[in-house]
């Protein structure tokens, strides 16, 4: 099964909000720790290495895009 990029939540704002609220009151360091744990939990729940790799690829493209933007700004 390929990575689903359709909107899967009936109420996407609730999902986004839940993650945002989880970070409230955390230092940057704690937030990073929290994200690491959350990523591992969700990755295991997906349980499909191909989907995980596709998700990593999609996330990685943000890094490339932001690097290009920075270069354009310079």
């Amino acid at each position, binding site marked *: 099964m390929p990575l689903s990029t359709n909107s899967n939540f009936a109420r996407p704002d609730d999902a986004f909000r839940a993650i945002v609220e989880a970070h409230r009151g955390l230092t940057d360091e704690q937030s*990073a*720790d929290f994200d*690491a*744990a959350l990523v*591992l*939990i969700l990755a*295991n729940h997906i349980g499909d290495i191909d989907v995980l790799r596709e998700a990593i690829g999609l996330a990685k493209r943000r890094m490339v895009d932001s690097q290009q933007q920075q270069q354009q700004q310079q």
Partner: protein
Amino acid sequence: MAPANTHQAKTQFGYRRHPDQDRSGQNPAEHPVVIVGAGPVGLSLAIDLAQRGQHVVLLDDADRIGEGSRAICFSKRSLEYWDRLGVGDRMVDKGVVWSVGRIFHGESQLYQFNLLPEDGHKRPAFINLQQYYAEAYLVDRISDLPAIDLRWRNKVTGIEQRNDSVALTIETPEGAYRLHGQYVIACDGARSSLRQMVGAEFAGQVFEDQFLIADVKMTAEFPTERWFWFDPPFHAGRSALLHRQPDDVWRIDLQLNRYADPVVEKKPENVRPRIARMLGHDKFEFEWISLYKFQCRRMDRFIHGRVIFAGDSAHQVSPFGARGANSGLEDAENLSWKLDRVLRRTSPASLLESYHVERSMAADENIRESTRSTDFMAPNSHQEARLRKAVLSLARETEFGKRMVNGGRLSVPCSYDSPLSSPDADAWRGGPLPGRSMLDAPIAGGSSYLTDAFRKDGTAFTLLSFDHGAPTEAPAGVKQIRIGEGGLADPNGIVAKRYDAEAGSAYLLRPDGYVAARFRHPTRDGVAAALSRAQGLN
């Protein structure tokens, strides 16, 4: 059989002049196989080839077995191989048998694992045995085999590849002489001089973290298990390993930081307090102290003309996972039968290429596994350290977290995607696939084992078949093992279950115990075709 107490095993050997040294440089002696390096791999390979009827010259530049415990964990697979070489009992009698490991984080246990959770195997998951014992027993075995000519203090200083042989120049205490080998097998270790002589690269990854090994002698009540700590109270922020060896010797492995001064850290007066903190006392003596960095690397090709590399000379891994010596022994068992066939001209020389294909695949797997373990123990960045911290903390309450904790993944035989294997044509729900190692199982109600039947009268291509009215006739030269009616009893059906066998099923096993092909309804032609393929004949 030799007595179990062999602390006095011979480890010092004399140089002896050989008549080959009296020949002129223009007319050197010719030998079919010359093995360079009398470590566990070279010694085992020599025995295997000699048992197959080959004459072997085995050269070593030293005159003694190396000091220090070095490799200590020998796998089930290695023990099964040593059974075939006639030294398995002696190794196991002296060794410390174990199959359970525990992983700790800080003060508490995260989880434990059992590497051989089922019964009905002749050999345990692992034994721990100092490498010098293993080597001494192999050398003893060699003294029973006149076909092996073991020459101490014979150092290869030059090689020259020819069309039909390799010319070696060998330095001895009485000067140099020359020797020709049809094939030269380089088992001369991680710092292989033969590798340098053929001009091959040995590229890979160097890990910066330093590890301290101390083998200490003490009487202790720890169980015979592999204990591994992340961030233990006695060694904050780093990892530690405790493992038992024979003779009340314990292997302790402590991760140090990458900037530690090796000369200072190796001094016994500096090691002692570290160990005392770990054990809670200082009633121990040092047997061996060593400080090392990991390297994970391999040769691009294991075969250079008529020089073939096996063991650490061809590939090097980090020690966590016991993949060094064990994979070298797997190299030996893979190469031996192929080289024997090529020397007898029953298979073409191209069969040897499958040694490179299969064993470089295994080397990649071993490097991948041991690199992952090393990276988990010594994270490369803050974010890697953070992910590890998350895994360790999730391991306390989740199954998936436990399984992500990597304190070393221990050596198991590799699965070969090999040109010698015939892919399954029938439907199977289990059992070893073509390219995988055979599985052991009890026969005749547990009085014997399948691995015993396999090695009886020497390992050869073997058709393992399950009860059937009319047995398939095996091609000439193929041994038969029949399970069930008219053959070896399998009263509880354990063999059949491990092999997913139905009446009439059959497995074609290679001389190294790997599955070449399997059949639900074997036919003469089908078995013959799989056999030719496994022998490199088509």
